[in-house]
């Protein structure tokens, strides 16, 4: 296992490259997921407010 | 019938520019300033200066043209003339081409005429200065044509719109590469016809392809 981690002496380069990739790709999925939740909350908030204005 | 309008737009823009001299001088002053600042930073070693001359002069010309492009639509946009032009019975891309040509006459041509002066400062001999002027003559219209697209896209923006237009500079890369390569080839004594033909091809491409997106972008910015 340690031989695998060592990557023939290039461990730092290979794993930093893969590390950056995981970061970028995860962010790429996380961001829309959170935005989606935020948009849903915003819209329901606006609609509830809209309903309240209507019946005042 | 369209040619009359084409000429009218050019004449009007030239007239406006001459009545409003400051804009004219700005881009030329910027060009001279940037080119003459470099030796102060890089040192006056003539061999080095001669080596970087094509690149420095061309990048300065590129930026000078781009900065002066902002006026192309901005004043018309602010006083409503842009709407008048968009609603004329003539194809908008034709009128846009007229405006770009007027802009080229006001910035591209002066830059080309002043370049030999600055090239002299960098120790270029006459033959490479001739090639420099040729590349500027062919290259500056391409810069105006492509730049016009970005300016049309961002003319309606209030905040930071101008800076955004800078992001069209990547499209200037081919022009910069072939122009500076032509001058380097001349300095090294090689024939320059290859690079010059590439520049002419880019000019033909820009002339035919860029007015249409500029016109559509103007309609976008106004809607």
């Amino acid at each position, binding site marked *: 296992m340690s031989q*695998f981690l060592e990557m023939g002496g290039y461990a730092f380069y290979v794993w930093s490259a893969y590390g950056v990739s995981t970061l970028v790709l995860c962010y790429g999925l996380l961001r829309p997921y959170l935005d989606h939740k935020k948009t849903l909350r915003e819209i329901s908030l606006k609609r509830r407010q809209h309903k309240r204005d209507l019946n005042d | 019938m369209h040619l009359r309008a084409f000429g009218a737009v050019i004449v009007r823009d030239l007239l406006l520019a001459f009545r409003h001299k400051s804009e004219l001088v700005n881009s030329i002053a910027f060009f001279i300033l940037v080119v003459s600042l470099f030796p102060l930073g890089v040192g006056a070693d003539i061999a080095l200066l001669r080596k970087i001359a094509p690149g420095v002069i061309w990048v300065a010309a590129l930026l000078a043209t781009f900065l002066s492009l902002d006026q192309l639509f901005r004043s018309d946009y602010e006083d409503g003339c842009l709407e008048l032009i968009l609603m004329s019975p003539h194809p908008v891309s034709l009128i846009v081409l007229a405006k770009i040509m007027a802009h080229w006459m006001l910035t591209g041509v002066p830059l080309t005429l002043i370049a030999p002066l600055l090239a002299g400062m960098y120790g270029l001999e006459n033959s490479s200065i001739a090639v420099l002027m040729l590349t500027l003559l062919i290259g500056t219209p391409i810069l105006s044509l492509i730049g016009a697209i970005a300016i049309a896209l961002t003319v309606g923006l209030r905040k930071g719109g101008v800076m955004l237009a800078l992001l*069209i500079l990547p499209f200037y890369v081919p022009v910069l590469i072939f122009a500076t390569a032509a001058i380097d080839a001349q300095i090294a004594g090689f024939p320059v016809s290859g690079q010059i033909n590439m520049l002419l091809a880019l000019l033909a491409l820009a002339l035919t392809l860029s007015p249409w997106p500029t016109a559509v972008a103007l309609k976008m910015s106004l*809607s």
Partner: protein
Amino acid sequence: MIMKWLHKFSSPPYFYALSGKLIKWLSVLLVAFLAAGLYGGLVLAPADYQQGDSFRIIYVHVPAAWMSLFIYMVMAVSGTIALVWRIKLAEIVSVCSPPIGAGFTFLALVTGSIWGKPMWGTWWVWDARLTSELILLFLYLGLIGLYTAIEDKRTASRSVAILALVGVVNIPIIHYSVEWWNTLHQGPTVTKFDKPSIHIDMLIPLLNMAIAFKLYFAIALLMRSRNELLQREQNGRWVEEVLEGK
């Protein structure tokens, strides 16, 4: 038949529901291909005789570089469809793609320079491919900047479509002029940045990773499109049921 399906597919509520299911299925596929690609690339593939194990970065760098161009094409095509036929869905796709494309371009740049470090000792090399990738990143930033700068969403997406169209015409020109410029200044050096001779065991994981990245793009695009659609249609009745459903 196709038009009917396209019409049905493009109606917002239908698309919203369908994309929800699609994302789930695609993520399963993504995990599968990713696992295959990574395992193949990191473990099975033999080390390169010249670069040793550092060549394994190729399994991230090359698919990312392919994706950066692929996404630009997808964006330009969907932008043109949106401009010409005014199909709302195409507009949303062409607007949601730039951030993902920028991500992949950035990834290609970073992994490229990390890969170059052991070979040439410097983080940045004016290699033709890396330079073109850098310019492509500027193009993506321009698109994202333009979209965020314009308030009205419809005009913003059409302006982005125009810039993307102009971009797609210029990308080959930029690429070849940079390539030409590179050979001019660097001359025939041995550190040509091409892929090592591809052995079949090395190629399979590369293709798996490429497919995995395409699946990833589809998922990210669907997620962003659902979000964009929700924002644009927030007054629509179908949004009502979506709110109850959640």
